[in-house]
């Protein structure tokens, strides 16, 4: 049914006059011109009204903070006095680029990101492959996979902090039973990064495994059948059928995990215990997120913290660009 016909029917019920001529209708009903205007307005405006909530929320909680942070990053702005800011141009940025702590945090974010993301995705792929077999109680296994993801960062981190305690922690007790000297997990550089990564791995592996599993179940079964007919082993099927079919999914999880790793905050903060925002006595596991928090909320330099936020945004955009290039390359390969 066309829009005009729909209008005619509803605008003048009971009159029996379906002619859409404007002049005739005005005489027939004084309200109809108002109605028609309302209707036209409705047609034009309602789509905007429907999408408005998103834009309102995005404006209030996305765009405005983004721009305000940009403005703040160009000012000397203190947590103790938000009304008194002085314009200093790019000084916050140049100070950051000169600061050892910033580069240290950037490096830590990268290394922790790598040692948590790579094993995480590899293990997730393996788990997904196992879950893809016909298993007894498969739903139970899948739910179990998701359980770590459902626990809060806080509780997971606190438990891991106790496990990795220097004195009396379970990890040191276990490695001690095979004759290895206890490691000060929090204060050694690689030890602390390993410990923080293990929290991330524990929480996110199951989540990624389920994403892979969903993608694997979409792989047409006849591909496996023909591969099997050609004499491919399980492992060969995995390598030559599953992995290529999962490529876009893998790319997706890599991007999501990379973004998550760049923003890593809660795990190292809580792992650090008291004064956690420093990321250890030598800042050995201070990530960019922690550095931002430390600058802004512990030291009160909101301007500099804003500059860190914008640099983090720049890094994420860079990662997105690299990802785009890779994705395009993959598409060409097909």
């Amino acid at each position, binding site marked *: *049914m066309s829009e005009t016909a*729909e209008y005619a*029917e*509803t605008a003048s*019920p009971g009159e029996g006059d379906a002619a859409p001529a404007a002049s005739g209708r005005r005489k027939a009903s004084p309200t109809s011109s108002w109605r028609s205007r309302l209707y036209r307005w*409705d047609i034009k405006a*309602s789509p905007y*009204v*429907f999408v*408005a*909530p998103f834009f*309102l*929320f995005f404006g209030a909680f996305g765009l405005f903070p983004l721009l305000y942070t940009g403005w703040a990053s160009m000012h000397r702005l203190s*947590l*103790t*006095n*938000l009304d008194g800011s002085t314009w200093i141009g790019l000084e916050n940025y140049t100070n950051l680029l000169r*600061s*050892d*702590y910033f580069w240290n945090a950037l490096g830590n974010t990268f290394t922790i990101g790598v040692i948590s993301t790579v094993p995480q995705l590899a293990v997730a792929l393996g788990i997904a492959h196992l879950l893809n077999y016909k298993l007894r109680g498969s739903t139970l296994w899948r739910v179990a996979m998701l359980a770590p993801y459902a626990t809060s960062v806080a509780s997971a981190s*606190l438990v891991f*902090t*106790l496990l990795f*305690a*220097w*004195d*009396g*922690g379970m990890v040191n007790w276990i490695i001690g039973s095979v004759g290895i000297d206890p490691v*000060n997990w*929090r*204060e*050694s550089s690689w030890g602390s990064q390993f410990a923080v990564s293990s929290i991330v791995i524990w929480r996110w592996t199951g989540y990624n495994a389920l994403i892979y599993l969903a993608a694997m179940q979409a792989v047409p079964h006849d591909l496996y059948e023909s591969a099997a007919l050609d004499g491919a082993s399980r492992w060969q099927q995995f390598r030559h059928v599953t992995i290529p079919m999962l490529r876009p999914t893998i790319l997706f999880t890599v991007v999501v995990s990379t973004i998550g790793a760049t923003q890593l905050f809660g795990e190292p903060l809580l792992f650090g*215990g*008291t*004064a956690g*925002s*420093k990321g250890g*006595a*030598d800042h050995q596991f201070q990530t960019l997120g922690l550095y931002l928090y430390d600058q802004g*909320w*512990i*030291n*009160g*330099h909101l301007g*500099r913290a804003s500059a860190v936020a914008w640099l983090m945004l720049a890094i994420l955009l860079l990662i997105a660009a690299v990802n785009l290039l890779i994705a395009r390359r993959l598409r060409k390969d097909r």
Partner: protein
Amino acid sequence: MHTSSRRPGRLVAIAAVTALAGSLLAGCSSDDDTSSEGGDGKVTLNVGTFGVLGLKQAGLYAEYEKSHPNIKIKENVIERNDAYYPKLLTQLQSGAGVNDVAAIEVSNITEVVQTQGAKFEDLGKAEGVDKSTYLDWKWKQATTEDGKTVGLGVDIGPTALCYRKDLFKKAGLPTDREELAKEWAGDWDKYVALGEKYMDKAPDGTKFVDSASSVYNAVFAGAKERYYDKSGKEIYEDSQGRKDAWDAAMKVADGDMSSKLKQFDPTWDQGFANAKFATVACPAWMAGYIQEKTGPEGKGQWDMAKAPTDGNWGGTFLGVPSAGKHKKEATELAVWLTQPEQLAKVFAKQASFPSTPSAYDTLKPSPATKAYFNDAPITEIFADIAKNTPSAVYGLKDAQIGQSITDIGVLQVEQQGKSPAQGWEAAQKEIKDVLGQ
């Protein structure tokens, strides 16, 4: 016919979306209204605190609610001050979500007085406040140059030394509190020397002290010169008080006399429970902590002696932010809570030491607390220390400077095996970053 039902349907949808958006937006603000104005017309006062202030534990809120039937009190606790304080600042800046009564830690008080003074009610002029009941220096700390008092003193932290009698005995050291206090009186080096003796015959798996930072804080508590001079200039590099504290902490770290625990971490709590260390610096507010974390097994094992020097570590004020919705009621509550009689009740329950000397003659710790510390004369020890504490000059960033020294400098030496020189260099670098230099 289905066409005519479509339009109302669409309108309903628009209305629903608008209403949803409206209620979501309103959700942020309506929350405050309902929580501060209970359905029964009662006024709810939010009290923001960190750690264990003891007001609630001593039953003061319940008592106040009973005598003021229209008031309900809600305490919002954040475990640690370094998380609580930024939140307080944010609330003061935005004027939204402020607590009606807010606790302020002594190491932040100068910054609050100097930068946030305008955002607090003047409690010095509030009804029922008698300046003379408070310790003079405590009063001055919370008063601006033009005489506005932004916070009333709750507790102070006269610092003694708590020690485990059983471990001292096993290590062949004296266990009598008078004898010990005499042995190390006046000089922290003597305390460290006793630590060396302890380590010679230390019971298995125990150390002399919980952490080198604890020693740093205890020595620094008695410093006449702190991180700032009277004019507000930073002098942390050359301050004698800072140097003494640093040296003592370094001796402890060098001599491997500490359990290398970080104070207020979960593992530190376990250290108490498992009797891993023999001494801990003991400001009054720590006494409640020790009882709670060591548990019933520690009863009668812990004892308390005067430290080599008298000092003050920590303490709290209560302020009333001007952005609060019920300033009048909140002021009345803050004044009532900090009266000597009320603070005496907190001491009885929690051993937090009042900042009102007029209460000192009548102070009594609860029998349980006294028994826990082997019947040590807790009141006399703390009152004596409080009277002899040198008046200290606090500065803008005391809290952050102290944290940089203990959590970066001392910890690098104690746990990462760096040299004291390297540790101090790292602390200095951190402080420069804190100060934005």
